[in-house]
């Protein structure tokens, strides 16, 4: 069993894991997304998905990265105000469709991952899940 207690230190964050509603959460002020992916993959974790959500308060977009490590569900939370985050697709091919879908739902750009239509057709507008007042 991999010891997850050292992951926050490896990522240079002060926050600790919190067990909440079915997952262990790490929600630092600032998350090195590519560092997180590298750390998790080095431990043999399986990337599950990213949950994206438009936040109403500050209009930022929340991204929850879900990983499975020996059956334990680990979730890293990150926020982006300008809707630009680094892609992890080159490190983890499983992220390909997920990042493309989040771009189509919330117009988040994943740096280093050229967008190619997934669920919407070529040339159709993206931002399917952006609240109407923000679209």
């Amino acid at each position: 069993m991999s010891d997850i207690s050292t992951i926050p230190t490896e990522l240079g964050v002060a926050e600790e894991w919190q067990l909440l509603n079915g997952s262990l959460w790490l929600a630092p002020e600032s998350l090195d997304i590519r560092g997180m992916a590298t750390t998790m993959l080095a431990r043999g974790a399986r990337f599950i998905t990213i949950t994206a959500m438009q936040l109403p308060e500050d209009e930022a977009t929340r991204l929850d990265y879900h990983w499975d490590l020996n059956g334990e569900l680990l979730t890293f939370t990150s926020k982006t105000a300008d809707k630009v985050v680094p892609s992890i697709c080159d490190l983890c091919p499983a992220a390909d469709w997920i990042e493309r879908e989040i771009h189509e739902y919330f117009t988040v750009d994943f740096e280093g991952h050229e967008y190619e239509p997934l669920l919407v057709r070529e040339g159709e507008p993206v931002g399917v899940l952006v609240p109407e007042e923000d679209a």
Partner: protein
Amino acid sequence: MSYRIPMGPYHPALEEPYKLNLICDGERVRDAELRIGFNFRGIEYLAERRNFVQVIALMERVCGICSNVHTLSVCQALERLAEIEPPPRALYIRVIIAELERLHSHVLWAGIAGKVMGFKTMFMTCFLLREKVMEALEKISGNRVNYAMNRVGGVNRDIAQPDSVLAVVDFLEREVNRVIIPVFASNRTLLQRCAGVGVLTQEQAKAYGVVGPVARASGVPQDIRRAAPYAAYSDMKFEVPVHTSGDVRARLVVRALETLESCRILRQALKNLPAGDWWGPTEEVEVPQGTGISRVEGPRGEVLYSVTADGENDTPRRVKVRTPTYANMPAIRLMLKGARLADAPLIQASIDPCYSCTDR
């Protein structure tokens, strides 16, 4: 000389749409491009405009085969948020319905595989067997597709006559052992069609994060029922069949063996069904602010639901669904590379894809 063959959106073997552009050198597939979205219904968008009770009914419509998996996942996520523990009888009933669903899904797929390979007797036999499971589900729930069994904190219906379901389990186990396993394990024609075809290596399976029988057929022994037990799975004894060859045959055999393990789980759950209530809370459930996450091992693999509530409205802020076919389908490209063109429909079908789940 290379040429491109568009396949779909009407699939040559399955009844749902998606598109594949096959780039071929002669009879060999050099590469493939996948196009999905033909069944996109915006279900996650709709979920943000329904109350929590309506969301359960909505999510049951994500898939016509594993509908129960979706209501179970969303109810578990809401129960985690609201800190509700369903009664033991409800947890056992959830296991029974989940395993009956796995049985009919796996037997259906065995039939489809037979049909794709031109083995139509197998198709007819499997659908006859599957019908017994469908009848059992209909007797319990009144429904054949959307069983509406799950509610927050419990289940909507009891299983009053477990012995009648046990008789179906006995029959199915006998027939799977008599017909399906011998055919998939040793039929010469079938082996020639499946062995060494559409290989996904263990390394590729891990990199692409594939799940369920597709992962287990590539030597990745993950199963959420075992790794992170939910409902009453921690009380059940069962094996997780794993194969290492990663080909179409391995996927066939893993699913066939899993039907026997489902029978084993069903027998334990039906014989040890605890007494007591099964409906859970009778008052309206308050869902506090936060995000609840739930994972369930569906017939095609791990399903993840993330449900976020703001604690003020009776509609969720966000419902995220990660279905197993969504995780498995990108790996088709790897399975197809170097394959014979004639094997392309079978390779695609071998992941037991659900396009409705994928597109949502």
